[in-house]
């Protein structure tokens, strides 16, 4: 400090010299402290802000959902009558289990038009959506109304205990050829 003052007063127009860091070389000076603490501080502040934002976003995704699980056991195969569309799981899980001559498949009860829940009309032998009138055969294939594609099927397998296991998180779409895959159909 004193050196710089003397220079400035004697030289007049001389450019101000950089003050020499005080203390011995290698000592922890004020400048060293600033050089490290300011970037560190801003980095920590930015990290705190970002993690606060992330935490706030994560807050909107609950850990426990009070809704039916995606996967469930649907009883033993002999509890289903051949040739029937079974509606016992529609209210709780949103799935129809259809038993035809050769086996089972699980149709997801979500209209492929805009996502309403169709009804199974046994007398008319079709699924009918109340929102915009889309109709589906018992296979799930659409034939009337605005629905652009067949109903989706859920994964259906036999569990170790001999019960039917439905997993809605695995979907099979007819238009993608998925209905040929194992899991989309359970042979009796």
């Amino acid at each position, binding site marked *: 400090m004193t050196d710089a003052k003397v220079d400035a007063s004697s030289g007049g127009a001389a450019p101000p010299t950089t003050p020499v860091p005080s203390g011995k070389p290698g000592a922890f000076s004020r400048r060293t402290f600033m050089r490290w603490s300011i970037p560190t501080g801003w980095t920590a502040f930015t990290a705190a802000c970002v993690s606060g934002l992330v935490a706030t976003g994560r807050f909107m*995704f609950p850990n426990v959902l009070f809704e039916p699980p995606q996967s469930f056991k649907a009883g033993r195969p002999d509890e289903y009558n051949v040739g029937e569309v079974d509606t016992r799981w529609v209210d709780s899980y949103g799935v129809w289990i259809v038993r035809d001559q050769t086996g089972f498949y699980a149709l997801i009860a979500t209209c492929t038009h805009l*996502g309403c829940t169709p009804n199974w009309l046994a007398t008319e032998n079709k699924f009918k959506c109340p929102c915009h009138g889309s109709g589906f055969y018992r296979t799930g294939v659409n034939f009337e109304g605005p629905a652009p594609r067949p109903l989706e099927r859920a994964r259906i397998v036999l569990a170790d205990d001999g019960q039917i296991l439905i997993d809605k998180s695995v979907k099979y779409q007819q238009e993608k050829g998925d209905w040929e895959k194992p899991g989309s159909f359970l042979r009796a």
Partner: protein
Amino acid sequence: MATTPKTLIGRAQELVTSTQVWKSVFRNRLPDDRRSRALVVLSNVFLHLHPVRIHKSGIRVKFTWCMGGLTFFFFLVLTFTGLLLMFYYRPTVAYAYMDIVDLAEQVPLGIMRELHRWSGHAMVITVWLHMLRVFLTGSYKPPREFNWSVGVLLLVLTLLLSFTGYLLPWDQLAIWAITVGSNMARATPLLGHEGPGSALLTLGDVPLITSGSDARFALLGGRFVGEGALLRFYVLHCVGIPLVAAILMAVHFWRVRKDGGISRPL
């Protein structure tokens, strides 16, 4: 004051305006000339959003259709009636529908909900007509282009207010309308589980964007329109969106003045 003859009214007025209570509220004298009228507007927190002086074209109905003002009026009506409805309405699956029925049948002045509903419809209509007027008079052009953008955001918020309020009666129409409407969020690019690019976001074999973690899930608080959706829409409808809209409205009105005043050629 001193020069005018002392009438009874004049004396009463002097008595009131000389009290400390009066003078602590109103810092300037009664608005009886141009300067004091301007001061009244300038020194009042509610009036100061409005300009002290406007061009004579600003009050011509043919220029403005009064649609922006009417939209704000409906917003105020909706805030007031909505606040009253909150004293009775409980946003849960067990109570919501019956509370709406009770609001019409049991609560005194059963038209409060209808006032809220019709004002909501009216606000959507007036905000569109306001936008049409601004377009027809070319008031979106520089230097007002920023305020047009703020207005577009306010239009979106108005529609979102309408959309979130639609669910609250919790009848079949409400549930399926929101089911259909929120299904659009499935197709959000990257963040919707049926949207383009969402399959790219994976950790190894585990997909990050599923029906339990996508944009629609965040909106509904669940995989379908249920308890979580009702509560989230209620909070957004009553607090979240109105708060943002109020802030943007303040910016919007302020910029009307700063960008050259209401509805006149520059």
